[in-house]
């Protein structure tokens, strides 16, 4: 079977090449960090409060998948936003969370009966030692929500289950927003800023020892999204320290390691094939 051998070698080589490509390309995205981890940077000062601050360029980011929230309101599964782009950074004193999502229609100032606002929210457990039910927490396991809407601005909310949302009279969080671009690329950018030390009952302690659970929600006003008709994420978390800061570097390491492994496999496979060929 003289013709069989060269073809086998070809297959092996192609496979190996594919593997090398796959490893080097896929690694930075897939394996740089555990699923559901949202990395954050340690930064100096407070230059990130503006949505367009240059400092954000150096902050790692995650694309968080969103789906319709399970809810009993009419049209609950009719939602439009599928991804929110999340970045987080921490200085000695503050936590900054920047959220970006595409929305072709800027819905601001619901001055008519039928208009609704664009809005976004970040949800944390009040008590960071346990993960509350994702849908607005539970009675004994409440959530602290940072809510921004294009119309009414920022609110800090407390909820212990769907329909129980209550606004704090004095929000500890503030938000800044911009909308830029047009058409399908039009993007909302909202930055939340909160002091790490913000005292008050039922307010999430951000200086926590362990990971900090976090979830996201987005409403598209022009689709009449409000209340439980919203795009939501699963629970994600900010790691207890910025251990995954600099994923590009880490990813590079992984890629190099991957290529090395593949190279070894390739060489071995090639050697085996040659040895077999030589024996026959």
């Amino acid at each position, binding site marked *: 079977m003289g013709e069989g051998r060269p073809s086998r070698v070809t297959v092996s080589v192609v496979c190996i090449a594919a593997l090398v490509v796959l490893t080097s390309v896929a690694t930075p995205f897939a394996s740089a960090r555990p699923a559901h981890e949202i990395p954050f940077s340690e930064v100096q000062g407070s230059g990130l409060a503006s949505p367009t601050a240059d400092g954000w360029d150096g902050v790692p980011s995650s694309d968080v998948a969103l789906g319709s929230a399970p809810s009993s*309101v009419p049209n609950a599964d009719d939602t439009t936003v599928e991804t929110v782009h999340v970045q987080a950074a921490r200085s000695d004193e503050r936590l900054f969370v920047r959220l970006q999502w595409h929305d072709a229609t800027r819905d601001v100032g*619901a001055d*008519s*009966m039928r208009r609704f606002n664009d809005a976004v929210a970040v949800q944390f457990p009040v008590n960071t030692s346990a993960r509350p039910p994702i849908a607005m927490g539970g009675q004994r396991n409440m959530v602290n929500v940072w809510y921004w809407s294009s*119309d009414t601005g920022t609110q800090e909310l407390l909820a212990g289950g769907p*329909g129980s*949302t209550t606004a704090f009279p004095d929000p500890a969080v503030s938000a800044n927003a911009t909308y830029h671009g047009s058409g399908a690329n039009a993007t909302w950018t909202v930055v939340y800023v909160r002091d790490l030390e913000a005292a008050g009952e039922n307010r999430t302690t951000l200086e926590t020892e362990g990971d900090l659970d976090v979830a996201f929600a987005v409403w598209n006003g022009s689709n009449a999204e*409000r209340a439980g008709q919203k795009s939501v994420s699963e629970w994600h978390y900010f790691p207890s320290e910025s251990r995954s800061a600099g994923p590009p570097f880490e990813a590079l390491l992984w890629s190099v390691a991957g290529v090395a492994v593949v190279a070894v496999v390739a060489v071995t496979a090639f050697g085996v094939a040659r040895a077999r060929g030589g024996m026959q």
Partner: protein
Amino acid sequence: MSTDQQDDSDTQIDVAEGIDHQVAMVMDLNKCIGCQTCTIACKTLWTEDGGSEYMYWNNVETKPGAGYPRGWEDSGGGWQSGEHSERQPGEIPDQEDYGRAWEFNHSEIMYEGSDEPLRPREGAEWGPNWDEDEGAGEYPNSYYFYLPRICNHCTHPSCVEACPRSALYKREEDGIVLVDQERCRGYRYCVEGCPYKKVYYNTVSKKSEKCIFCYPRIEGEGPDGQTYAPACAEECPPQLRLVGFLDDEQGPIYKLVEEYEVALPLHPEFQTQPNVYYIPPFAPPQHTEDGETVDVDRIPRQYLEQLFGEGIDQALDTIERHRQRIERGGESELMEILQDKNPAKQYRLEVFDDG
């Protein structure tokens, strides 16, 4: 579908679960002159602030007509059946369907010496009672009547059910349906959910608002501590509204609704079980071109049935029977109730005060 509470002649009052007593109102449509005094009484009392200009918690519309908000009868809401397990989807009316608060040329006329007629500046294309007195039918048999409407403080309020935050609730002591302004977050599911379109969204306060059955008045919170019926009732020149409790068996409301069954809910098929009831309108029979009376209903029975449900035939027959009794010199408690001018009997609001 069956509405089994109604076809039993054994009277049985259906007060919502957990509600001690249910306030109710009966309006005799034969007495309404469409003067809008009730509308203005309510407006000046409750809805003059920013964002509520377009709101009429009490409105009076001409029937047949598109009503306020325009087309409300076809805007959905309410329940699919008398079991109240599934709601009917509804819509939020457009601002144009309510009409906008018009600006008038007052300053030109009063300060600038213009002799134009007084009129709205612009945008007057639709508004509450726009189709006043148009009605339907051809000369000499045209017809219309006035229909005053407030929130029905329903026994099964779909507005309450629609709110995912329980911001709307039915008061235990009297079944009045209120919006908790602290809890409301302006989602407007209640506006969609009410088939009578009697919850309104305030774009300034970003909350929903609705008729409160003048509860501070019925609680005696006025300056002299006295109890008053809602302003729309007390201010009505022909005094066509009776106010009291549905479950006050000595009261006129109970008698008209439960005993004689001549006071009917509006659009019972919405299944919210309204607690505002109407004595249906009578009109003289039709005439021929040369003025002869013919035995044909001027207001088509079918139309009245569309508005007030299947009870219409029986209600009209009962009233007719009692009228004839009076004409023959007899007596009728029903006719007495309908003609009573004693406010103490028209407004029975303190019967359940435990002191």
